């Protein structure tokens, strides 16, 4: 049950890019700020919307 909830939370974080953002902050040794989010988001969305979406 606890594992299931952890996975569900993880999935929600994955789909909302929260996990990727946390990794981004960790990888670059930075802290959260509006500018940092925009920098991350621009890069992430560029890659995300450069791929075809499935039908």
């Amino acid at each position, binding site marked *: 049950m606890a594992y299931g909830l952890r996975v569900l939370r993880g999935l929600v974080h994955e789909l*909302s*890019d929260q*996990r990727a953002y946390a990794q981004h902050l*960790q990888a670059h040794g930075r802290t959260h700020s*509006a500018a940092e989010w925009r920098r991350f988001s621009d890069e992430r969305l560029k890659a995300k*919307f450069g791929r075809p*979406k499935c*039908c």
Partner: protein
Amino acid sequence: MRFAKHLLWAGVAVLAAYALGALATTRGEPVNSLWIVVAAAGTYLIGFRFYAKWIAARVMVLDDRRATPAERLRNGHDFEPTNKWIVFGHHFAAIAGPGPLVGPTLAAQFGYLPGTLWIIGGAVLAGCVQDFVILFASMRRDGKSLGQMAKEEIGTIGGFTALVTVLLIMIILLAVVALVVVNALRDSPWATFTIAATMPIAVLMGIYLRFWRPSKVLECSLIGFVLLIASIFGGQAVSHSPTLAPWFTFGGMTLAIMVIVYGFLASALPVWLLLAPRDYLSTFIKLGVVLLLAVGILLVHPTLQMPALTQFIDGNGPVFKGKIFPFAFITIACGSISGFHALIASGTTPKMLAREWHAWPIGYGGMLLEGFVAIMAMIAACVMAPGVYFAINAPAGVVGAAPAAAVATISSWGFPVTVDQMAGLARQVGEQTLFARTGGAPSLALGMAHIFSTSLGGAFVSFWYHFAIMFEALFILTIIDAGTRVGRFMLQDLLGHISAPLGRTSWMPGVLFSSALIVGAWGYFLIQGVRDPLGGINSLWPLFGIANQLLAAVALCVATTILVRMHGARYMWITCLPLGWLLAVTLTGAYQKILSPLPDLGFLAQAAQLRAALDAGTIAAARVHATEVLIVNARLDAAVCAVFAILVVTIALDSIRTWAGVLRGTVARTTTESPFVATQLNAEEL
């Protein structure tokens, strides 16, 4: 313990076989939808546990001691080892689109049996195998894309074919899904208001996320969801207002132009403003609704009203023309096998796998779940009375524009329906009419509304109907805006070879020019569909199905080449059998769509019939220009279909040449896999 496990699996196999047998042999008595659920779930479990595991162990020789690209190339970006269930959810969210919902709804005109059997068998033996092998191949090649693998494994022709195919499919796909939305919103102020409201909501969410509460995606999506629900109630108020309703009541052509303008704007506007917030919202709603529908079907377990087989297996169906073979297998693409999945399986997913064995539940299991979504759509379409189903899905050009004529035609087929019944149903869901609402979305929404409202005691049918329409339109629009953008990138990539500035994605004139070109391409087919007297779906959906299966054929050619290079001829049947089936289906479908002498089916026969009518002077003067346009469209569709057929034959022949070379020893049996590196990762901690 081991014996108990064997006994359990034997029980699952017997239950699935019994359910399949019951579905296949029952005629003339009501069948409960739970039989379909049991048959699908049992077969999928057996396929997953035995066939897929055997492929993983014997053919792919998956090895958890081997470091995956996510570990070796970890960069905190796209390469990142991730918990397998999170990757599963991510992969499923990426592959699930409107295809598995709309395809089975349209194919229900043959009865529930053909589509159900194809969704069950096709997923286990073809679709899941394709996704799984391509995911495996990409994972062993540092996450390479399908196009790159096609170029490396088969040759330059394979790579080029993959690129052209994807671009062509995008154009047809965007046109056909846009047509589904247009048909769902036509003359419906409630639905149009709700969908129109999603745009300012998305923009508001974009600004919220960018400037007010950066990074708070969940919070923002929740606000967006609440506003969306409010917009459904707002739509109801608008539809009841004599002043406001006309402002949101449009015909097909006006709506088509609106969708085209929307596609252009979405392609040119910054991603964060419209696309990204809508995409977040759409993903959560998509997963939530799929879950809700599964629970609803289990709770309600409705009885199927549609017979197992209808007389339309002979090719004279009102929804689309063509016999059960090949058209049942082309119409249901995404629920059984979809070439588009190969792009996802060679995109983000292989870069997130922490262990090689995770490819088994994610590659194979993800597609099984997609098959299950298609099964639910088939059930939703088949729980309504067949007369109602045909009244909604048959175009006015086939059954007659007047309600009395339509019900008389449909009732004469043996599917009784009355004008009062349809009027009552329309009133119940808050629509002016449900006649000739082609495209699949309205009938699916009606089926879903029936299941949702029955599980809650029969209340709020109109709310659930419009919730379902909003759900379908929301993620179709997500595909339109994202697809237009990707199509623009592909086009700019090609245009860059002609003029360097046109290839720059930051040069605004180039962005606008290429956006206009790509929107113009799918917009042309959309308008063609709106003008088509047979409803558009009759010509566009088979084109889309053929194109999607063609991409699957490309993926299976790549997969077979990889298996031949690994094991010689020993295991090539695993991908060759579905490939052979797909070639038979797509080539027969393409041949019939181009050259059938029946004007309702063959594009050239349709053009010839219209030309003959023009020459004979039987077309009214006011309709002459429109008829000329229809002739050009029919010939264009024939040409597009021919291009698809030529592409599929080209890549198949090129692949066969490579396989023969490898098996004869004239082509080196080299592997393009990355070398073995031992893992250092503790995947259980993820």
